[in-house]
């Protein structure tokens, strides 16, 4: 392993700054780095401490982050993790999340640069979620847990500082979204009646994974009255039926987040997760006439020509093309709510698994800690 001090001597690898919180933050603002919030100064000591949980060469890129295609080396990622306020033991998951969202099917370039307001949502599964105390319960998408807040923020800082997703020049989102500050949760596996998301996607339960989806912010589904699986799913499907969704125009993979209470009602009705997906796909639609005339003529009749070229205005337009593409995760605390997260559309969810350099599944982040 090359010594950190030696790596930092390379041109552009480090900057000199006054050893002062405000001075460092003024420098960060002046350089156009960061997300607008104050950062923890990434001193050499703090970066070294972060890299204690890295079992790879610190200068070799793990990925290139679009749209700048900046090289995401562990060294650069560690600096961003420090700035975000991460604990060192979060670092292996940051590396994994960045690697995963840079895989081709995710289409990170478009996710970063689009006018749409999506952001990479990271869902963590497996034992590491609990080890790092990643919130999967009450307020999982909100504030209050250091791991959710800072790990999600470190991802965003890497997307900004390494990937160049600068508002207005690399990130052209018309509005942006609060999820662009931090968007990381764990699945509430203990409260789920079904197999966890990562098991459904082909990994053993003891593996730890991140699943990334180019998603919008959660939209609530209130259903305090339904007592049956069909009832809950009908309400969710009804919420999914929106005319302004990107997903209408793609073979998309929108995310349905069910609270444990809703999921339990659905499962007790005899529905497997796949059964629930089929129901949602079949019922999440709206009549063609709910779209504007221009959208019908210029887009739907063109994009789905074989289906709508001569269709009447009461023909159903499906929000999801393939049932298995719906991503269902059980997240949250008590309460009769679910959430619907439409996506960018032209993106595929990708799951990455936490492995050591020797290729073995890591059961704990401590396996990355250098002796």
């Amino acid at each position, binding site marked *: 392993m090359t010594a950190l001090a030696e790596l930092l001597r390379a041109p552009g690898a480090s900057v000199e700054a006054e050893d002062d919180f405000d001075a460092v933050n003024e420098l960060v603002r002046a350089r156009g780095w960061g997300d607008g919030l104050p950062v923890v100064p990434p001193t050499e000591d703090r970066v070294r401490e972060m890299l204690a949980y890295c079992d790879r060469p610190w200068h070799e890129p793990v990925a290139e982050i679009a749209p700048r*295609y900046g090289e995401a080396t562990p060294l650069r990622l560690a600096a961003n993790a420090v700035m975000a306020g991460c604990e060192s033991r979060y670092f292996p998951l940051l590396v994994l999340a960045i690697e995963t969202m840079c895989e081709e099917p995710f289409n990170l370039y478009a996710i970063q640069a689009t006018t749409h307001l999506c952001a990479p949502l990271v869902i963590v599964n497996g034992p590491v979620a609990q080890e790092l105390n990643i919130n999967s319960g009450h307020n999982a998408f909100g504030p209050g847990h250091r791991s959710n807040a800072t790990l999600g923020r470190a991802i965003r800082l890497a997307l900004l500082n390494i990937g160049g997703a600068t508002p207005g020049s*690399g990130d*052209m989102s018309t509005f942006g979204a609060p999820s662009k500050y931090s968007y990381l949760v764990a699945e509430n596996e203990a409260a789920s009646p079904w197999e966890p998301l990562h098991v459904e996607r082909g990994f053993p339960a003891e593996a730890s994974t991140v699943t990334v989806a180019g998603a919008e912010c959660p939209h609530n589904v209130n259903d305090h009255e339904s007592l049956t699986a069909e009832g809950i799913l009908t309400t969710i499907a009804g919420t999914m039926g929106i005319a302004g969704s990107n997903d209408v125009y793609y073979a998309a993979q929108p995310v349905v987040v069910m609270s444990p209470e809703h999921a339990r009602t659905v499962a007790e009705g005899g529905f497997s997760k796949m059964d629930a997906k089929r129901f949602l796909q079949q019922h999440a639609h709206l009549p063609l006439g709910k779209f504007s005339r221009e959208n019908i003529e210029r887009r739907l009749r063109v994009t789905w020509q074989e289906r709508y070229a001569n269709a009447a205005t009461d023909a159903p337009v499906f929000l999801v093309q393939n049932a298995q593409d719906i991503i269902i995760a059980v997240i949250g605390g008590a309460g009769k709510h679910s959430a619907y997260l439409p996506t960018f559309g032209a993106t595929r969810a990708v799951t990455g698994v936490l492995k050591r350099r020797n290729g073995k599944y890591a059961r704990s982040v401590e396996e990355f800690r250098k002796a």
Partner: protein
Amino acid sequence: MAELRKRGLVTAVICSDPFLTLGQNQARVFGVPDLPLVVIQHPLGGLALEGVKARAAAATPPLVNLIKAHSR
């Protein structure tokens, strides 16, 4: 487009004005900082056919000039 430019073909990217900086950045990223960017008025989406034709008309002269310059 960057690959075509590197192979010596006549190339240009047409973008609407808010996307000029993104286009310039991407041209640099892909190693073709001199990639011609033909800027048209924003927006392009949602235009009636006449509006699209007007955008095309505005973009055509610079494209013709590029082709002429290349063939000299």
